[in-house]
C-alpha cells in the first residue's frame, strides 16, 4: 500500500463515496423528472398545482362522522374523513388487542374444545382475504329486518307497534337497543337542551332512521367488526408465540414459589412475553390502521373514500393522494413511536 500517487478512483473509499453520490443523484434526478412530468401534465389539463382547491365548496354529503354539510369545504371533508379513519382505527386497535389476547389464552389453555375453536377461528380468518370478510359482514347486517320491524331489546314503549320483538311493524318503537338494516342504535348519554347534565337518551325509530341514542351505521359496524376479528386472529398468534417463547422454567419456578396459575401468568410470564410480543404487535396495529382504507369497498366514509370523491370532483388527484399518504404515514409513524417507547420501557423493567 504505497499509496502516494494512486489514481483517486483506485481509492476504495473515494470510489464508494462517488458511487453513493451517483446513486443519490440518480434517485434525485428520477424524482425531479417525475415531478416535472406531473406538473407538465397538470398544466396540460389546466389544473393549478397547490392546495388552494381545499377551500372550495365541496357540494357533496358525507354519511357519518363530525357534522358536515354540502356547503363545507373540500378541506373540511378530508378532516371528517380523517376523523372517521381515526375512530375506526383507535376503537379497532383497542378491541382487537383485547380479543387477540383472549383468543391466545384460549388457544394455549389446554382445554381441547376451547383450543380447537380458537385454532379454527385463527386459521379461517387469517387465510381469507379481508375484503371478502368485510363484504360478508356487511351483507349479514343487510339481512336484518327493515326499520319498521326493528329488533328491540329492552323496549320501553311503542307508538303503536307491539313492544319487543320484530312483530311490530307499525309506527315507532323506543328501546335500549334497536337493530335493523339501518344499523344499530343504543341508549347513550347526551346533553339535551336546557338540561345542565348528561341525560340518558333512548333511541326511537323514525321515518327514515333512528332519532336519538348512539347510532352505529351498518358500514361502520361491518368495518370495525371485520378489522377486529381479522387483526385479532393475527394478534392471537403473536401473543401465543410470545408466551411460548418464555422458558418453561420460569413458569415452574413461579409455581415453586407458590404463585397461582393466574398470578404466574400475570406477574412472571406476560411481562417477559411482552418484550417478544410488542414489535410484531406494532405491525398488526399498523396493518389495522392501513387496512381501514378498505372502507371504500363497503361505503364507510373514511379518509381514503372521501379523498377519492374529492379527487374525482377537483381533478387534483396528485395533491389529494399526497395528503392522504402523508396522513397515513403520520398515523403509522406515531403508532410506531408510541410502541417503541413502550418496548424500551418493557425491556428495562424486564431486566
Amino acid at each position, binding site marked *: 500500500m504505497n499509496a502516494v500517487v494512486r489514481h483517486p*478512483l483506485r481509492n*476504495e473509499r473515494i*470510489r464508494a463515496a*462517488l*458511487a453513493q453520490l*451517483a*446513486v443519490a*443523484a*440518480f434517485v434525485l*434526478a*428520477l424524482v*425531479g*423528472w417525475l415531478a*416535472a*412530468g*406531473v406538473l*407538465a*401534465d397538470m*398544466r*396540460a*389539463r*389546466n*389544473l393549478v398545482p397547490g392546495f388552494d382547491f381545499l377551500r372550495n365548496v*365541496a*357540494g*357533496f*354529503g*358525507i*354519511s*357519518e362522522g363530525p357534522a358536515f354539510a*354540502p*356547503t363545507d369545504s373540500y378541506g373540511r371533508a378530508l378532516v371528517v374523513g380523517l376523523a372517521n379513519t381515526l375512530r375506526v382505527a383507535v376503537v379497532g386497535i383497542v378491541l382487537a388487542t383485547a380479543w387477540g389476547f383472549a383468543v391466545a389464552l384460549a388457544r394455549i389453555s389446554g382445554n381441547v374444545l376451547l383450543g380447537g375453536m380458537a385454532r379454527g377461528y385463527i386459521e379461517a380468518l387469517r387465510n381469507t382475504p379481508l375484503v371478502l370478510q368485510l363484504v360478508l359482514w356487511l351483507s349479514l347486517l*343487510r339481512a336484518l329486518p*327493515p*326499520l319498521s320491524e326493528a329488533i328491540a331489546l329492552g323496549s320501553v314503549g311503542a307508538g303503536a307497534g307491539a313492544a319487543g320483538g320484530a312483530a311490530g311493524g307499525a309506527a315507532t318503537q323506543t328501546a335500549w337497543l334497536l337493530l335493523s*338494516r*339501518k344499523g344499530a342504535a343504543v341508549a347513550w348519554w347526551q346533553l339535551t337542551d336546557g338540561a345542565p347534565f348528561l341525560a340518558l337518551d333512548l333511541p326511537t325509530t*323514525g*321515518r*327514515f*332512521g333512528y332519532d336519538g341514542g348512539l347510532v352505529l351505521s*351498518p*358500514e361502520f359496524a361491518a368495518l370495525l367488526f371485520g378489522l377486529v376479528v381479522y387483526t385479532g386472529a393475527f394478534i392471537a398468534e403473536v401473543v401465543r408465540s410470545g408466551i411460548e417463547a418464555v422458558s418453561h422454567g420460569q413458569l415452574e419456578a413461579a409455581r415453586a414459589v407458590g404463585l397461582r396459575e393466574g398470578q404466574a401468568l400475570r406477574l412472571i410470564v406476560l411481562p417477559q412475553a411482552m418484550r417478544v410480543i410488542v414489535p410484531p404487535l406494532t405491525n398488526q396495529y399498523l396493518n389495522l390502521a392501513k387496512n381501514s382504507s378498505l372502507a*371504500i*369497498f*363497503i*361505503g364507510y*366514509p373514511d379518509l381514503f*373514500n372521501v379523498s*377519492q*370523491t374529492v379527487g*374525482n*370532483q377537483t*381533478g387534483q388527484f396528485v395533491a389529494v393522494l399526497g395528503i392522504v399518504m402523508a396522513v397515513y404515514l403520520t398515523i403509522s409513524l406515531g403508532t410506531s413511536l408510541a410502541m417503541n417507547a413502550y418496548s424500551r420501557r418493557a425491556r428495562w423493567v424486564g431486566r
Partner: protein
Amino acid sequence: MRIRRFTTALTNGTLALGLLAVAACTAANPDAPADAPVADAPGDPGASTSITTTGATTSSVPADTGVTTAGASADASAAPAPASSGGLLATVRQRGRLNCGVQDKLPGFGYLDPSGEYKGFDVDFCRAIAAAVLGDATAVDFKPLTAQQRFTALQTGEVDVLVRNTTFTLARDTQNGLDFSPTTFYDGQGMMVRADLNVDSLAGLDGANICVGSGTTTEKNLGDAMRKAGAAFTPVVLEDTDQVFSAYDGGRCDAVTSDKSQLASRQTTLADPTAHVILDLTLSKEPLGPAVLQGDAQWADVVNWVVYGVIAAEEFGITSRNVDTFLTSEDPEIRRLLGVEDALGEGLGLTNDFMVGVIRAVGNYAEIYDRNLGPDTPFKLPRGANRLWTEGGLLYSPPFR
C-alpha cells in the same frame, strides 16, 4: 482484483446513468412542451390540432402521425382526403377492428345478453361506427370499462371511441382531453324511491338515506339538489353500480339517485320492480354521447357524422328495411345522405355510401332506440327530449350537403 474491477464498472455505470437522468431532467424541465415528458399526457387542449395523437396512441400508427390530419379534414370539401393520411381512422382500417369502450352492466345501454353478445343503445352506436369505417358492423372489439377507467382507456389508446353513457361537461372536454360527439341520449339525474314511502318531492326525503355511486357527477348533483330543496340527507356512497342498487334493494337506503335512464334500466332488475317509483323530477342535465380523444379532427368528424346520419335517416323515414327503396329517391338531400350524389363520404375519409351500410346494419335513430329502450323492451322509456326536433324533441342533424 476482479471484484475491484467490478465495483469500478458499477461506479462508472451508475455515474453515467445519473448524468443521463440529470440531462433528461433538465431537458424535460420547466418550459418544455407540455406533452413531452409523460407518456399518457393527452394532447394539450390549448394547442392546435396539428399535434394529433400523443405517444400513447401511436403504438400502431405510422410515424407520420396526423400532421396532415387537421388540414385534410379542414378542406375536406375541396379534395377528398385519402384514408391513408394517418390518424386513428387509418389505424382502425389497418387493424380491421374497432375498439369500442362500453358499459357491460347497464341493460338497455350496454350489457351482455344470455348468449354472451354485447347489446344495447350505446353498443349499437359502436356497431354503426364500425359499419361506416370498416363496412362490417360486427368488426367491433368491445372493452367493458368502469366509470373510473373510461377516460384513461381513451387517453392511452386502449379504445378508439368511448360510447359508455358519458355526460358531456366542460371540465371533461378540457381537463380530460376529450372531444364529445353529438349527444345521442338526453338524460337527467333522477331519484327512485320506495313506493310505500309516498314521497313525491325531494323535500319529502328530508332525513332520508340515499344511495349514490362515486366516480361520477351524481354525488355533487345530489348535494346541490338537496340543498336547494332544503332537505338534509345521509348519502351512502358506493363505488360500484351493482353495489349501489343492491344496497338500495336490500333496504339500506330509502332512495337511490342516478341518471333516469339508468334508474329505469335498473328498476327492472330489482327484487320487486313495482315497489319502486321514479320521481317525476330532474336533478341535473346529463347529455350522453360518444367521446373521442382530442386532437384527431378526422376521426372526430367520422364519429360525429355517423351519429348525425342515423338522426337524419329517421328524419327522412329511412329504415333498415326500406333503405334500398331510397337509393332511387329524387330528394337531393336523401341522395347525398346515401351517397348516390356528391362525394360527402370521401370528405370524411369514408366511402360515399357509408350511411347505407350503417342504416342496413343498425337502422335509424328510432330503430336503435326502440330496439333497446322502446315500448317492446322492459324499460319502456318514453322518447321525451330524445325525439326529433320536428316532433318537439332535441335531436337535430345539420344538413348533409
